[in-house]
């Protein structure tokens, strides 16, 4: 019997993601966006119907939230039972590459967790990305590990997504498909996909009226979320960004706007 004693890896290796879905075009998104209208009337723009939602951005109190969060479990219910997993690190990485960033062999989103974060050619995930949910094991021992939301993976997802959002939003400052490198890291790392550049370009004029239009906002929403969320999610997001960032600049607003989509449960959780 062999035991793995250490999985600390000190170099970033190439990423190999299989089973990619075909990239949807922004033109198709725009067409469907028009069909969906403003999206605040309960119409579904995702592929799943959800319950009527009523909290579109209020600041919830901790007490209400805790009461809400405690609801699904009883004292006799195993904590993991009946709770969906995260999509997981590899799937989220694939979504980002399909929708926002041109895939390059030396880059994966684990980069934002400080380099000790990669998947090798056989799709194994090690280091901090392993905490974001991944398949592991062989035979009877195989399964999806670390897939349940908890405080530490929320810390990590926020860390990752907030860094990604800053990089994506920095395209507005330069107009270049390759955002400038952040001060704390070497060299340009990412190149935006043409569809994503086309979607974010109108919103770069924020807070101009054109940038706040339904069309511009839906274009950005769909570029990131595609059809994974119901229209109520878009409606809530649209209302939030229009009200909260109406007098802020694009540089101030866009990272938060993107982060709000990237941290949405419909982006993070398996369905």
């Amino acid at each position: 019997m062999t035991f793995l004693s250490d999985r600390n890896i000190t170099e970033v290796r190439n990423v190999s993601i299989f089973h990619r879905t075909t990239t949807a075009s922004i033109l198709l998104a725009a067409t469907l966006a028009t069909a969906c209208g403003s999206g605040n009337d309960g119409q579904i723009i995702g592929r799943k119907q959800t319950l009527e939602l009523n909290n579109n951005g209020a600041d919830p109190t901790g007490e209400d939230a805790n009461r809400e969060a405690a609801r699904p479990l009883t004292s006799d219910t195993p904590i993991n039972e009946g709770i969906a997993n995260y999509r997981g690190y590899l799937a989220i990485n694939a979504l980002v590459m399909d929708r926002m960033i041109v895939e390059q062999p030396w880059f994966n989103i684990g980069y934002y967790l400080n380099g000790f974060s990669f998947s090798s050619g056989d799709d194994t995930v090690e280091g901090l990305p392993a905490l974001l949910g991944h398949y592991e094991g062989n035979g009877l021992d195989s399964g999806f590990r670390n897939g349940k939301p908890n405080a530490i993976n929320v810390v990590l997802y926020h860390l990752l997504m907030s860094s990604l959002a800053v990089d994506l939003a920095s395209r507005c400052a330069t107009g270049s498909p390759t955002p400038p490198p952040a001060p704390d890291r070497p060299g340009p790392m990412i190149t935006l996909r043409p569809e994503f550049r086309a979607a974010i370009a109108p919103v770069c004029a924020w807070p101009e009226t054109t940038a706040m239009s339904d069309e511009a906002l839906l274009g950005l929403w769909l570029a990131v979320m595609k059809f994974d969320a119901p229209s109520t999610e878009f409606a809530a997001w649209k209302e939030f960004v229009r009200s909260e960032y109406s007098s802020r600049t694009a540089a101030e607003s866009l990272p938060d706007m993107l982060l709000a989509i990237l941290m949405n449960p419909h982006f993070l959780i398996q369905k």
Partner: protein
Amino acid sequence: MCNNHDNKAQTINRRAAVRLGFNTLGAAGVAAMLPSMRSRGGLALAETSRADDHFLLQVMIPGGLDATSLFDARPLAMTAAGLQTNHFGAEPTTWTGTNGESCLATSAGQSLHNIRNDFSILNGVLMATTFDGHDQNTNYFVTGNPFGGEYFLPHLNNDVPNARPMPLDYIDTGFFGMASITNSSASAPLNSFSARNLAQRLTAVAPIPESSPVMNFIRARYMANANGGGKFSAASAELNRASRKAPELAVQLQGLEIDTSEEDRVRQSMNLAMQVFAARASRGALIQFFPGNNVQVDAHDPVSNARQPELANEVARAIQTVFAMLRETPFDATRSMLDVTTVLIGTEFSRTMRQLGLAIDASGTDHNPLTNTILIGGKGIRGGMVLGASDYATPEETLSRVHTTLDPARLKIMGRTFDFETMRSTTATPASFNPGQYLTMNSVANTIYDVFGVKTERHWLLERNGSRARVLTSLRA
């Protein structure tokens, strides 16, 4: 032995010094007085003292460590009779507990004499008696079920009345993947390198805020999507709950100062565990210790088995390290880490005495879940005792029918029956198996529950629909 006593005196003095020093000089004064206390891992002291400061450190030695290599040794007469492999080459000596019970210890076991009051020895602990596999017995060790289930450690964080749950139930410093644990959602497989990188990144990038417009909006979406009965809604509810704990945890993790240049894996893991304890980020820590340079704990082969003394000495050194670091590291102004940490050290099962068909000095050993040795100490536990014993102590011993039924080839030692009223093992030889008559892992887990104050309804059952395993009350400090 004289040196051992000297060390013991030093131990007491150092621990007393922690208390006295903090009371009179404060943290800074003690740091100046005992510089090593602050230098190890750059540990920050807990600023306040809380009644619910109670942590569990579980040290796991995967592979099935031979109980006879430390505190449940067999006399050389067993080897001469061709029954028990033994590569120590010396007669084991008696180790007598403060409760009057004794066992035979090898030289590796006796090397821990200087810290004998830091822990109690549980011998003859039955594991999953009808399963020989690593996975099943590891599952049983941590969940009470050979097929897996709920690990006892999360309940120490979530089922103790009047104790505030910590953000994490436990950290797993070894990426412990063998057990099928169903309640691991608030755990983190975090080793020293990961923790260091995470702390650095959280320092470079603003961590998740307690409150901000965008974070409040994100939480509102989690709440809104929790309004359903399905798995997605349940996950949204968990996201909401986790996102409220995350800011505190981010600050706690940001403050970790991990020295990854430390080559000793146990020290490295201990540094991390003690830091998360001091930050009150996690209720427990699971450390895996893999002794031996290319020596298998799982000594099926005769070469590995021949090196068991070397391996046992390494395990003993690791145990010394664990208790020394806990004892010498302050938790807060008045308490050491050992004062707030319960320690459980063990492996998934012991080993057979030999293999059939091979000469006794050329034999490996196989799995034996009919006995195990577990060490337990720290907060809430009375140290220095020996509880339980195993049979086949001499070549002439008549084995019970239970033993010969479970081990027809007579290759294993088995835990003796145990009297829970007197807290002593007995020499009864029952004809049929009743787990309530034995010291089992169930009682060990329930004893841990007991010292943490976990609700009784959480206590492990002896068997399906059976009664709850009895607590080892004499271990209560």
